[in-house]
């Protein structure tokens, strides 16, 4: 028992855990820099002579640039829509008292309980009817609808935590409600906006299910969906496969290393109170 509670034991646990997590990632990056034949002979060797050509092939033949552009468009579009709507609704629900307030709050909370995947069929038929199937706009609206309940809930919490005197002081100074939101409160809820941004953007960027169902045109596909096609296409070219996976993973890894605190806060926002 003494050993199991010692500092050395805990340090050991963390080191083993770090190795198990990092080794596959390092293997991926390392293999992306090796020639396919070289890899097939000795899969575990270090890439001492980096084969950058793998990355060049991904960029040239894989439709990768198009997928990447589509992902940026869809994620960015959804994010702007989510932030604008959650900022407004969060402000109203966090700062105003009015009849129906708790009813709307309950509705927003109930939206968090609906598993989007199970509504996929009616959504498919509805989007078809609205001419939003096979369109980035349709995808953006569905993503926004999925993320907004939690986003509004998080933002209203941030608005509520600000002192009430701020509003009154601004109103006495003659500020309109819009100016109050834009100039006084918005700068103060920036941490909330950052959490909402990460909470919504990461799953959207990583998602492949909704594009799989809603997008058919090859030139409209997103990066994670494109990766599944890419994988079939290059199934025998290991080096190119690894390079494709690395390129798809890299943007988020870099962002995460810069903003790890915000990422952890944002992605656990649904589970931790306050």
């Amino acid at each position, binding site marked *: 028992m003494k050993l199991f509670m010692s*500092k050395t034991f805990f340090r050991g646990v963390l080191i083993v855990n770090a190795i198990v*997590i990092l080794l596959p990632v390092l293997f991926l990056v390392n293999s992306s820099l090796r020639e396919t034949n070289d890899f097939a002979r000795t*899969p575990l060797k270090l890439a001492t002579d980096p084969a950058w050509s793998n990355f060049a092939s991904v960029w040239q033949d894989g439709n990768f640039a198009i997928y990447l552009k589509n992902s940026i468009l869809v994620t960015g579009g959804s994010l702007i829509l989510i932030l604008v709507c959650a900022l407004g609704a969060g402000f109203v629900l966090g700062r105003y008292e*009015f009849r129906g307030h708790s009813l709307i709050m309950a509705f927003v909370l109930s939206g968090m309980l609906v598993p989007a995947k199970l509504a*996929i069929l*009616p959504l498919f038929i509805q989007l078809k009817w609205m001419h939003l199937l096979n369109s980035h706009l349709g995808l953006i609206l569905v993503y926004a*609808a999925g993320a907004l309940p939690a986003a509004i809930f998080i933002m209203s919490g941030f608005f509520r935590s600000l002192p009430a005197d701020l509003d009154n002081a601004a109103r006495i100074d003659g500020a*309109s409600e819009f100016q109050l939101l834009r100039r006084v409160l918005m700068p103060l809820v920036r941490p909330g906006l950052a959490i909402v941004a990460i909470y919504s953007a990461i799953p959207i960027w990583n998602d*492949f299910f909704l594009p799989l169902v809603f997008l058919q045109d090859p030139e409209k596909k997103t990066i994670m969906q494109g990766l*599944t096609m890419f994988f079939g296409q290059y199934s025998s070219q290991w080096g190119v496969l690894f390079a494709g996976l690395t390129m798809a993973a890299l943007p988020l890894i870099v962002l995460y290393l810069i903003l790890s605190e915000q990422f952890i806060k944002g992605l656990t926002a649904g589970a931790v109170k306050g």
Partner: protein
Amino acid sequence: MKLSGIKREQRKFRWLLLSPGLLIIIIFTSVPALTTLSYAFFEWKGFVRGSWAGFTNFERLFTFPFRDQFFMAFRHNVLVFIGIMILQTSLGLLIAYALFNLQRGQRFFRTVTFLPVIFSLVIVGYMWQIILDPYYGPINLIVGELGQPTWARAWLGDTATALPTLVFINLWRWVGFPAIIFLAGLNAISTDYIEAARIDGASEGKIFRKILFPLLAPSMTIITILTFIGAFEWFDLPYILGGSNGSPAGATDTLALMFYRLSFGSVDSGANEVGVGSALGVIIFTVVGVGAAVGSKLLRRREVEM
């Protein structure tokens, strides 16, 4: 006079700000969620709705050939829930407690532990598919190097190992999540309790079992509920690694995969069964909803006030 002016402005502003968000939720979440219920009670030809069918779709789900698929998939979901609960939760708790006890370097280990959570499951799935490749994958190579070539196998292609392997990959991807939740829970516990117990001569093991673990009950509730929901809606990883049929031979089939096949048609038969699929959707939703509600009620009862 002034006040009512503000009130009037607020009322106008209120709906201007609330309506875009609410409308998007209503049109793209509430309406489809409610219609999905109705779909289960109609006959379907492809994506075209036919006449009222009563409970026929539910009856068909529980007769051949769907019945066997349903129970096998359901069994897999239950096994996955148990597997994740045991492995992921205990390992997450261990890592959280280790991080909690660390004075220096906590930030580094925390960042590493959470890293796989940001990865897309597409990347995670393909990465592990290559790592577990029967011929070129490092796992089988290492097993061979260790002088145990009989341990090498097609981990994802063997019906005996496919599902446990998926649970392991899920563990790699997700363990940082419970770890961070438990760490937040541990950090929220007042150090006074720990100090007082130490002064009374309690061992570290006893402090963990008698003080920290009981006070972690709220975190445990959240993790259990989220794991339950995740396990019964498990789709992405089995789809990426086993396709919509749950290869090999249905060994990785889940309720969500079956729902997808019924809704959009499977690889080997293009025909879909929207009615039966929606009936299955209603059942999954009920299992998840009732399970999560009852579970959180039961689990909350054992939470203690700090």
